[in-house]
């Protein structure tokens, strides 16, 4: 699999996406336009989701590029460290944006304080993504005097950010040093999985037609359980990936799982942004959902089970891909 190309295809998404998101959010502060604010939050959430395969494909790209002559190992490591720091700010911004979307839907209000926090998070994330992009670009097009083996000199803001960047190997070793830490992460990943399947399953089954005596509105308020589960699993999942990057990146089942998660992002977008949600929102006891809603609900269930199944098959498909 050509991770190098995949990484090049994806790696502009977090940078451009976050600049667009910050612009939209800033513009929404000037007026009373709710659509701008909502769009900014949706952009942050979507970009955060896409940042996961961007980050992951970088490891594959790293392994393929390492074979080429004239590539500076130090520049690759610096780029990895920058990505490992920026990733968490992107994920935090995405999570905060989803929470704000959920709350504004529930209360209808404009939580100014939350929006300011999101703006600050997004600005930090944008700077870190910019830094990640620059350090990544340096790998292929080094600055004069930074060929293989040359010492890297940081200047300006880069030297400040560099103080906070983890050493990639150090971070990896930290994750796998203690088997009980690993076991704890795996237990949490399974708890997160149960929360997601429980809440998403209940909501989707109601749409499909199971337990129709339950009104949709209150059932849909279980969603924060799934959001908490998703937060747990994105964090534990990415930490596990950082613990064994080459193991996961070289695994077809892992990529299948990521693909299913991306399709779930699309599924959520179709459900909430095309008016399907508006039509099921007021379903009372005994009322039947529209056919389009049932299709979306069934595909969500299928995709979540595809995530579980491919996740469980990761061990079986160890070393199934070549860098």
């Amino acid at each position, binding site marked *: 699999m050509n991770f190098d190309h995949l990484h090049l295809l994806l790696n502009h998404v977090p940078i451009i996406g976050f600049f667009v998101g910050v612009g939209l959010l800033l513009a929404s502060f000037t007026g009373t336009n709710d659509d701008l604010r909502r769009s900014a939050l949706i952009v942050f959430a979507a970009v955060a989701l896409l940042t996961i395969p961007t980050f992951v494909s970088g490891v594959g790209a790293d392994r393929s590029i390492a074979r080429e002559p004239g590539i500076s190992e130090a520049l690759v490591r610096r780029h990895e460290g920058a990505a490992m720091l920026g990733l968490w700010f992107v994920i935090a911004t995405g999570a905060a944006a989803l929470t704000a979307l959920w709350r504004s839907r529930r209360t209808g209000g404009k939580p100014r304080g939350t929006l300011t926090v999101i703006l600050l998070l997004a600005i930090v994330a944008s700077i870190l993504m910019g830094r990640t992009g620059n350090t990544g670009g340096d790998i292929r097009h080094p600055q004069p005097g930074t060929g293989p083996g040359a010492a890297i000199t940081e200047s300006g803001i880069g030297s400040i950010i560099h103080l906070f960047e983890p050493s990639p190997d150090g971070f990896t070793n930290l994750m796998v040093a203690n088997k009980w830490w690993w076991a704890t992460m795996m237990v949490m990943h399974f708890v997160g999985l149960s929360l997601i399947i*429980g809440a998403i399953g209940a909501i989707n089954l109601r749409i499909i037609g199971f337990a129709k005596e*339950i009104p949709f509105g209150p059932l849909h*308020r279980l969603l924060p359980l799934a959001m908490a589960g998703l937060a747990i699993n994105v964090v534990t999942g990415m930490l596990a990936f950082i613990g064994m990057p080459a193991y996961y990146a070289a695994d077809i089942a892992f990529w299948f799982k990521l693909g299913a998660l991306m399709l779930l992002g699309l599924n959520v977008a179709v459900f909430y942004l095309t008016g399907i949600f508006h039509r099921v929102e007021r379903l009372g006891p005994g009322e039947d959902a529209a056919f389009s809603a049932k299709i979306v609900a069934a595909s969500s269930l299928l995709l979540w089970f595809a995530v579980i199944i491919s996740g469980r098959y990761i061990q079986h498909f160890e070393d199934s891909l070549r860098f």
Partner: protein
Amino acid sequence: MPFVAFVVDGAFGITNVQLSAPEFLNTLERSGLSTWIRESESAFAYYFVLVVHNIGLALLVGACGVLGARLLGFVPELPVAPLRRYFRFVWAGFWLNVVSGVFLLIAYPTKALTNPVFYIKLVLIALGVVALKRIERSIPQVERSLALWMLGLWVGVLTAGRALAYTATYLLYGKGT
């Protein structure tokens, strides 16, 4: 081979207790089914059983999570009585995992049966089933403490199940980890 071997050291009595596996585990491990699940390269052998076990977990603990959250007061406007219907998924997940669990046990009998955590898991499952049965009978009037016990027990089962991979002293008969 005896199940427990005591090493008696002169006047000091027992100084070392060595656990070792009884012979029938060896016999079971050498059986065709056990060997096939464990050693087959097929994606429908060991990892398929694990997938089924995982789906069972998702159904069981997922439904327990929704029930437990509501019984503990989350989303009070959600009617409790219809949630009884979710017990269908609870028991489907439970029996899926009894069956897949037996297959996993057949694949690695020594690994599980020489591990104290496995017995802890069985006890937690028994208690978890009792808690679920009591909730199923008394729903919609369920005490919060019972809901909390039920959730705690099933998270305990999940934790013990995961811990099996990290606490085994033997992988196979006569083969330590």
